[in-house]
């Protein structure tokens, strides 16, 4: 009998999914339903879409089903990005590896992981359709991939499982992701603002 699941492509995709799944959370808020989030750093920083984290508090469900209380710490509707802080306590969080959206070429394989239609840890495979740039920097990653609303806030990764974007919307059948470079810039600004307000308070 031929065992198709152990072909090299399938095995690798399974490994990528099970690794990535540990860094993807479900974000539950009152009213807006569930979206996805990415564990950006192991100290409890979650990145998601602003349209997923519309309330001050959110319940974060880890890949193994454990639930943690989250506080929305930054919210940028223009970029559609938000951060949620969780206190991991004794839980060891696995941060996602961040990739380089600037290296993406049309045709490159991409993987999305999220919770479409409330199904947890669902994976989708596709390719880069186009990387839209502005002043040389990636602005949107358009992917030929089948996404659903619950994918919002979840990762789009390259073929090695490195996060290149945050899945944000579906337009004309294409998945549209905010590039990881935009996330980094957003996090730097959040950090700078926090430093400023802390020093003012001092």
């Amino acid at each position, binding site marked *: 009998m031929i065992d198709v699941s152990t072909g090299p492509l399938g095995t*690798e995709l399974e490994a990528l999914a099970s690794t990535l799944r540990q860094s993807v959370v479900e974000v539950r808020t009152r009213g807006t339903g569930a979206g996805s989030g990415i564990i950006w750093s192991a100290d409890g920083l979650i990145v998601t879409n602003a349209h997923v984290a519309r309330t001050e508090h959110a319940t974060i469900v880890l890949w193994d089903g454990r639930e943690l209380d989250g506080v929305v710490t930054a919210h940028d509707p223009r970029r559609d990005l938000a951060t949620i802080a969780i206190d991991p306590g004794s839980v060891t969080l696995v*941060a*996602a590896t961040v990739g380089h959206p600037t290296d993406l070429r049309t*045709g490159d394989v991409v993987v999305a992981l999220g919770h479409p239609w409330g199904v947890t840890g669902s994976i989708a495979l596709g390719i*880069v359709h186009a990387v839209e740039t502005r002043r040389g920097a990636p602005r949107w990653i358009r992917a030929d991939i089948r996404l659903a609303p619950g994918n919002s806030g979840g990762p789009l990764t390259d073929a090695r499982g490195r996060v290149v974007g945050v899945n944000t919307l579906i337009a004309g059948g*294409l998945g549209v992701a905010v590039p990881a470079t935009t996330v980094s810039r957003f996090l730097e600004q959040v950090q700078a603002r926090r430093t400023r307000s802390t020093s003012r308070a001092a």
Partner: protein
Amino acid sequence: MAGPSTTTPPTGGVLESLSNDLAGAVDRAGQSVVAIQARRRIPASGVHWRPGIIVAAHHTIQREEDITISLADGTTVAATLAGRDPSTDLAVLKVDDAKVPVASLADGSAIRVGALVLALGRPGIAVTASLGVISTVGGEWRTWHGGTIDRFVRLDLSIYDGFSGGPLVDASGRVLGINTSGLSRGAALAIPGSTVNRVVDQLVKTGRVARGYLGLGMQAVRLPAALVEKLSLPNDVGLMVVSAEPGGPGDTAGILIGDVLIAIADKPVGDPADVMSLLGGDQIGKPLSTGIIRGGEPKTVSITIGERPREPRDARDPRAGRRGR
């Protein structure tokens, strides 16, 4: 800001090499993919098929003049319409100055069910892509406009807006055919390279693909059992004439609306496709012995097959633009 990570993605895996292959295929094949400005909406795609010859999807060419083409090297050149064939949804444009490579054509044997394929388009400046597989390969078939396509190639992939006229390529970037959503109510189909070559030859030579024409609109109808018995007909279906182009071959031969065609060249007909199959370009000018029923009585009429007018109405049918991408 990214914190410590316990994940170290492997390099050099099959997924990464697939990624490199696909991106390489897009890059190579994308060199010959062009954007065509010949409609009000977003540009359509085309392929630099032979030096100076661009192949496009007929339904996306909505004007015959002021057509410009944007090439992979960023230049924009003027193009002239060499001809179009609505029956296969193909059009050929000529450009003087295309300094981009022509498409590298794959062997027809590469068209196999399950083959991993990319559809490419250039509905703007950059080349864009979608990934899928060939889901069906069948034999020769006839389009609803009467064109003959060498093989039926259905795709499991997305034909995005502006993708019609773009190439279907294999994982190494060789062109298998031209994609269109205009032949099958929006479903993704590919016109195989062999058919494209044949149509290009004809369009470059004469500017058109000649097709026989009766100028009749027909609809299959069931015949009353009594009539079938009375006339000892082999078939209980016929084709009722619902329209006749004034001055067309059928009208000239005396066919009237309401006549029911039951046989052509002594063969029973029960589907308009039966008639279409007898109207190849080589039949133009030849008489067609047509058995009809008029007022309950059988009758034989000889129709001289004409040539389909050069600009069929469907070329300007606004619905065609909505249906196709």
